């Protein structure tokens, strides 16, 4: 690949899935019309979903899923050793995600509820950054393909990616959506990081916070607003805990 006459290095990449639905990995393989261009920029050396190649000489590692077993933690540490740049992709890797639901109950009860008498190796849900250092977090459930492509362009050119610091409301207003609060729905858009083009409110569904907290979100003010609007504590808690996006707030 050439950029203004300069030949660009083609970084070797690996994509690794841990505890999650594999939807984010699938997003990378989606959008066939651009795949040729995308894989013209990077060399895939380890990505189970699209290739049987299993090499260990990757320079950039994309990590999908949360970490729920010691074995996963060990594998992740090994990947970190190898990768120059480690990117956590998706809500599970960045926040714990939906999986984090189980951390809200005693582990034994959860295992019994799902697997019955069958024994299974599983522990508390951890974010990728709780185990290893993370260079970039690409948020979303699932990640958006255009944003992944945008990130790859930055990585190839060696430019630090700048994600929006502001909340979803900006993009929601830009799409001329009706505010879902006016339609009686609960929405975390005012405290959630933008970049999704307000896809949920666009489809008349309040935001669930899959992209994590916007920077310096005014969480307190939103809580007051939600209570004033008459949403129950239970309803608010269910929404906020869904992706474990606001555990730090």
């Amino acid at each position, binding site marked *: 690949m050439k*950029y203004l006459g300069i030949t660009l290095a083609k970084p070797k990449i690996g994509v690794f899935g841990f505890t999650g639905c594999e939807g984010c990995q699938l997003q990378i393989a989606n959008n066939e019309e651009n795949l040729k*261009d995308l894989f013209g920029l990077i060399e895939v050396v380890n990505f189970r979903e699209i290739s049987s190649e299993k090499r260990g000489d990757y320079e950039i590692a994309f990590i999908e899923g949360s970490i729920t077993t010691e074995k996963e933690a060990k594998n992740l540490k090994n990947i970190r050793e190898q990768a120059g740049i480690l990117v956590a992709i998706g809500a599970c890797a960045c926040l714990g995600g939906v999986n984090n639901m189980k951390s809200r109950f005693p582990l034994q009860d959860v295992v019994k509820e799902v697997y019955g008498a069958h024994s299974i190796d599983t522990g508390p849900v951890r974010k990728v950054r709780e185990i290893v250092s993370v260079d970039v977090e690409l948020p979303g459930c699932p990640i958006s393909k255009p944003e992944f492509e945008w990130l790859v362009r930055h990585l190839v050119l060696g430019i630090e990616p700048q994600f929006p610091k502001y909340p979803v409301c*900006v993009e929601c207003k*830009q799409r001329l959506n009706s505010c879902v*609060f006016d339609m009686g729905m609960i929405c975390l858009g005012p405290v959630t990081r933008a970049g999704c083009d307000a896809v949920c409110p666009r489809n008349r569904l309040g935001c669930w916070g899959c992209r994590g907290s916007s920077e310096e979100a005014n969480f307190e003010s939103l809580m007051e607003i939600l209570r004033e609007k008459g949403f129950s504590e239970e309803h608010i808690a269910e929404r906020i805990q869904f992706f474990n996006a606001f555990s730090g707030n």
Partner: protein
Amino acid sequence: MLFKTITRENFKKMVEALMEENEVIGPKARDLDTEGKKIYRFLKLNSFEELEMDYTRSYSSPKNYFLPFKEDLAVYDLHDKGWDQDIHYTIHPRVIIGMRACDINALLKLDQVMAKSVYPDPYYFARRRNTLIIGLDHEPLEDCFCRSMNADTAFHGFDLFLTDIGKDYFAAINSDTAYMILNRFDAKDVTKEDQFLYKKVKSRIESKFKTQVTITILPELMDLEFESEVWKKWGDKCLSCGSCAMVCPTCYCYGIEEDIDLDFSMAVKRKFLYSCNLLDFATVAGGHNFRPRADVRLKYRYYHQFRGFVEAFNQSLCVGCNRCGKACLAGISPKVVIDDLIETEKR
């Protein structure tokens, strides 16, 4: 100004004729609120039936048809030895039906900045020149304070301005184009009765203003109350979500970004509207943020609207539509903030 009347039937024919050759934008209902009331916004009309001439308030202003939220300023064709730049100002002719007097006054204010300043914005200018504006009177809503902002009537800045006088529309004509179009659809000269009806509607409209905001002393008051606790009070509630600036008919602050496509053969320089309430609005190269606090950012938004713009152009930037107040989940509106400042001053 010239005046004519046009029947509803002929108005329909006129709109349909305009739709044949132009992109026609008008108030459309898309969702219902919790009380079952329609939520309106300015969108492209596909048929006359979609046009809601009885609309109350559009959630967002039609500003974006002159200052798009995102706009490619230049496209670059990249090659081994450099690049070729391609710039287009032309747009497809457009008609906007149903703009309120406040929104037309908002355009006149934007004209000051975008078209009449030392560095005119050719992109804005092209859109302004290629857009036919058909205004529409309405009875003020409870929270409209355009009267206080001297923006409740429009004398220029439009092509045609309609007032519903019962069976016909009373039409104020402000451009050759509007005159020619109107005459194609059998517009009649104004009769004594039409004049009587028009004045009656106008005085009814006048009598219905409920919300007042005192602005005469505002520029001075703002300097006096620079350190007021009022800013902290409302700033603590502010979500820094930028909704106010997005729905505002006059907020025009923006940023520029560059992007490149996936095979590195094309690039764009893109302008995007931004808001001074957003966290990194005043972050500069090197990372320093001049306005890291929400209350300070909120204060400066009000300063631009009610003081800075007055200093530069002898008028407020705000037109009193209260869309920002409606969009703000935290209940921050010019009315409550300014009243609060005035109260503080009295203490």
